[in-house]
């Protein structure tokens, strides 16, 4: 690995999450290092999405600690996670369907807009410059994701693969420190998968963004990620680089299936 992987940026310690009597996550600990691509895999219902939602602040674990940049995180809401530099995409695309691609990605810049509402309204002075600046950044992302041709199209009209790309674009517009991707390749054809892989690697490479991703497609996971966590029935059964995980007997039994 030639990549410069940094210190631990996100440290999850002994996380347990229950919904009534259902134990979604049981005593799970792992960490995420700066600039790495960290995958979370596991069979359906293993608790992958729950894990992501814990990091994102949608769910609050009953037990365990989350350290972000060495500081223990208090109970928080998703919009606070966003303010701290954690952005995400969704398994079932959650875009603003009535708005154009451009506007959708622009919402990712909302947190960064500081200027006065009144000045924005009259499109004047600092507010105008700020808006233009953000527009420039958004155009950069649009170029990066190769979606120039659909900038003005309402998102609801786009095919699935492109919607997924816009979802990624919106998350990128926040210039996140950690990017959470919930099955970025679900439901895509081979070509779209290749494109998405390329984008994920490029994001990681060019912007140095730390990425945590959930994915079903094993070949994709093994190619992309630096380290992999394996969950099964809410428990961690494996953790390490792809080769290690692939050869672990427990993982093979639970996930890959015996005789794979």
């Amino acid at each position, binding site marked *: 690995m030639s990549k410069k992987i940094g210190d631990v940026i996100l440290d999850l310690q002994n996380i347990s999450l229950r919904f009534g009597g259902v134990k979604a996550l049981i005593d799970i600990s792992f960490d995420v290092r700066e600039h790495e691509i960290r995958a979370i895999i596991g069979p359906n219902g293993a608790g992958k999405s729950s894990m992501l939602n814990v990091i*994102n602040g*949608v769910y609050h674990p009953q037990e365990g600690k989350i350290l972000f940049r060495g500081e223990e995180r208090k109970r928080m*809401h*998703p*919009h606070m996670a*966003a*303010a701290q530099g954690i*952005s*995400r995409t*969704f398994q079932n695309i*959650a*875009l*603003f*369907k*009535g*708005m154009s691609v451009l*506007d959708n990605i*622009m*919402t*990712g*810049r*909302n*947190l960064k*807009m500081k200027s006065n*509402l009144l000045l*924005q*309204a*009259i*499109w004047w002075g600092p507010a105008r410059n700020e808006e233009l600046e953000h527009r420039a950044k958004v155009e950069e992302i649009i170029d990066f994701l190769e979606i120039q041709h659909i900038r003005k199209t*309402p998102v*609801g*009209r786009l*095919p*699935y693969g492109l919607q997924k790309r816009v979802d990624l674009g*919106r*998350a990128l*517009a*926040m210039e996140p420190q950690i990017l959470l991707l919930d099955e970025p390749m679900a439901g895509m054809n081979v070509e779209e998968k290749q494109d998405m892989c390329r984008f994920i690697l490029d994001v990681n490479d060019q912007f140095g963004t730390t990425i945590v991703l959930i994915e079903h497609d094993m070949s994709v996971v093994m190619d992309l990620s630096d380290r992999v966590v394996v969950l099964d029935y809410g428990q961690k059964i494996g953790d390490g680089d792809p080769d290690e995980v692939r050869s672990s007997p427990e993982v093979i039994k639970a996930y890959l299936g015996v005789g794979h």
Partner: protein
Amino acid sequence: MAFFLETLIGGLMAGMLYSLVALGFVLIYKASGVFNFAQGAMVLFAALAMARFSEWTNAALGGDSLILANVIAFVGAGVVMFIVAWLIERLALRNLVNQEGATLLMATLGIAYVLEGVGQTLFGSEIYKIDVGMPKDPVMMLENVFEGGILINKEDFYAALIAAVLVALLWVFFQKTSTGRALRAVADDHQAALSVGIPLNRIWVIVWCVAGVAALVAGIIWGSKLGVQFSLATVALRALPVVILGGLTSVPGAILGGLIIGVGEKLSEVYIGPYVGGGIEIWFAYMLALIFLLFRPQGLFGEKIIDRV
């Protein structure tokens, strides 16, 4: 010709008043994807607050300055509407994040009843008047163009003017500011809005506040015309066809819808009414809305309903 123009202008101004109420529906729909059944109750609540506050401050000031009393009352009623918005968010909406639209709709129905009851408990259930010093006398215009000129109701004219200004401000707010963009985002998808750092709770307070102010303005204008009483809550029913016509998501649509219905009502009453025995004014708007629902359900300017299957 003069008579036709007079009817037309009367219709336009009446239409502007419908638009004012319709605007409240559109605001909340745009920002939370909910049809707000409580809009009529909010108009009543705001008008009651305004009427009583101006009565009380006027008495406290010894009846010297009607304008000052009204300004204080307006600010006071504005604060009341802010508190109402905050309470609605705190007690109802906060617990309904990510729920189905129908759930939220039922919640607004409940809010309507609570507002109607609490409003009358706090402010009384008599008929009150709002007197903001609007000139009531009609004026003649264009006397040298037409014989006899055109008769225009000054009160309606100012009301229409105020409505127009309010609409222009709201349009700019929604289309040009980042808060406006955040509002539209929240309407589309709660979860996604949260993920990009839009604080849902604050946005909801903002939008219910803005809708509260729109209700206040509508309440003052309608209240000074009709008197403040329980039936003011049903003014919202008259705005219903307006939003269907204009589209639930469009501020300019609410205006144009209001104008079309105002003009349509008046003209049809005057020109078709005599042949069918009159009374067209009462059902005209609903008939028009029905036709629109059949052929263009998203309204004139509403977002086209697109669903990929």
